[in-house]
């Protein structure tokens, strides 16, 4: 079992940035019909979400969140030893988006910088990767950012996806500490499910096939360039494998549901979260849901949820958090950590984007 324990490392802060533009499933009633939209809202719990404009990227949102976090925490940028971004919505084919953020933030050359190509599990894996790097190095502070703008690729006629995705960028500060602080992490993967969530064309396997719309088994038309989700298979995975990972995590760590103050889960959809909550006997008040106002924000969603729930909390309360994230890959896991509510910043809105980064002609280079 891949289980990791990081002693004397803590999550010293977290922040979240969202775009201002609000999208509502109700806006799609004319396109998909009243009944379909109401059914969608009932299953997913989504009543609105945020979307970036044409040129704003996940990298822009992550940059905003990271800048805000370091400013609020009063951190000297030269002390950041690593910057890692989890995303599947990069600014460019290459280089990795984390380098754009590195430049914009003015971080030091003495910084380890790279992207992790993961979706819904990116923060969970990111914590494991960054904490592992810190444990075996002299890095005392590191930034992990995550965000996706999956809606930009979605076929606008795909009722299973177009109303689901929300967009956000999050930033976490990991720090070595002398306090009693521990991060525990369990990660799992199953490549057998690579087709359950997939965008088949545009990669190096099938780069330029025709953009012809074809009727799929679920009755929705798509091209090979459109993100596809095999809903029933993803559902089976989440309601079986995720609770199992959680039970294994409890067994391995000698803990149980009662030991945690907050269950910060990937906000996949309401029906999935209800099933997981029911199976694990998690009291509803310990499992915050932010699907109604943010939609499914991919890897960022557990942090969006913590920032939305505790960002405005006035007391300095120590929280024992159990985070679980699951999705594309298939990839999933469970992580526990302590965080003080004073270190969880409120969600900010930001539509700014890196205009210098928009290259309109190769002659500009």
């Amino acid at each position, binding site marked *: 079992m891949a289980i990791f324990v990081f002693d004397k490392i803590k999550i010293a802060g977290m922040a979240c940035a969202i775009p201002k533009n609000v999208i509502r499933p109700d806006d799609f009633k004319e396109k998909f019909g009243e009944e379909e939209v109401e*059914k969608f809202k009932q*299953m997913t719990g989504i009543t609105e979400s945020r979307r970036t404009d044409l040129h704003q990227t996940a990298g822009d949102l992550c940059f905003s969140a990271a800048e805000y976090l370091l400013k609020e925490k009063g951190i000297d940028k030269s002390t950041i030893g690593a910057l890692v971004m989890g995303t599947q919505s990069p600014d460019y084919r290459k280089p990795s988006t984390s380098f754009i953020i590195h430049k914009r933030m003015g971080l030091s050359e003495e910084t380890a910088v790279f992207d992790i190509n993961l979706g819904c599990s990116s923060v969970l894996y990111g914590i494991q990767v960054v904490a592992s790097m810190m444990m075996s190095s002299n890095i005392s502070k590191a930034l992990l950012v995550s965000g996706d703008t999956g809606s930009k690729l979605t076929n606008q006629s795909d009722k*299973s996806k177009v109303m689901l995705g929300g967009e956000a960028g999050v930033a976490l500060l990991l720090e070595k500490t002398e306090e009693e602080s521990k991060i525990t992490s369990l990660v799992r993967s199953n490549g057998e499910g690579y087709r359950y969530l997939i965008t088949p064309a545009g990669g190096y396997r099938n780069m330029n096939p025709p953009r012809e719309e074809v009727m799929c088994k*679920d009755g929705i038309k798509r091209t090979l360039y459109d993100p596809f989700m095999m*809903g*029933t*298979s*993803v559902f089976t995975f989440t309601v*079986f494998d995720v609770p199992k990972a959680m039970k294994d995590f409890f067994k391995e760590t000698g803990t149980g549901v009662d030991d945690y103050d907050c269950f910060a889960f990937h906000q996949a959809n309401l*029906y999935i979260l209800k099933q997981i909550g029911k199976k694990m006997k998690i009291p509803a008040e310990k499992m915050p849901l932010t699907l109604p106002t943010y939609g499914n924000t991919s890897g960022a969603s557990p942090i969006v949820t913590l920032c939305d729930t505790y960002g405005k909390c006035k007391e300095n309360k120590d929280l024992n958090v159990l985070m679980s994230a699951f999705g594309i890959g298939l990839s999933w896991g469970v992580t526990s950590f302590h965080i003080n509510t004073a270190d969880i910043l409120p969600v900010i809105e930001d539509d700014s984007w890196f205009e210098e980064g928009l290259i309109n002609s190769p002659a500009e280079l």
Partner: protein
Amino acid sequence: MTNEEKIAMLEDVLELDGGTLKPETELSSIEEYDSMAKLSLIVMMDDEFGKKLTGEQIFKFKTVKDILDFME
């Protein structure tokens, strides 16, 4: 569990009136057998039969009888 009891459970999941389904009923003819119903079916198989119903298996179901056979 008898076939009648299984059919009653299935009608419950699909929110259909009792007596609507027959073993030979084609699933494609049931309007209520939509994506949401399939998720409810996965949950029912787990809760009531402790069985893991996959998306691939659901695609193979053609008639009510196929589902009944899985409810063992």
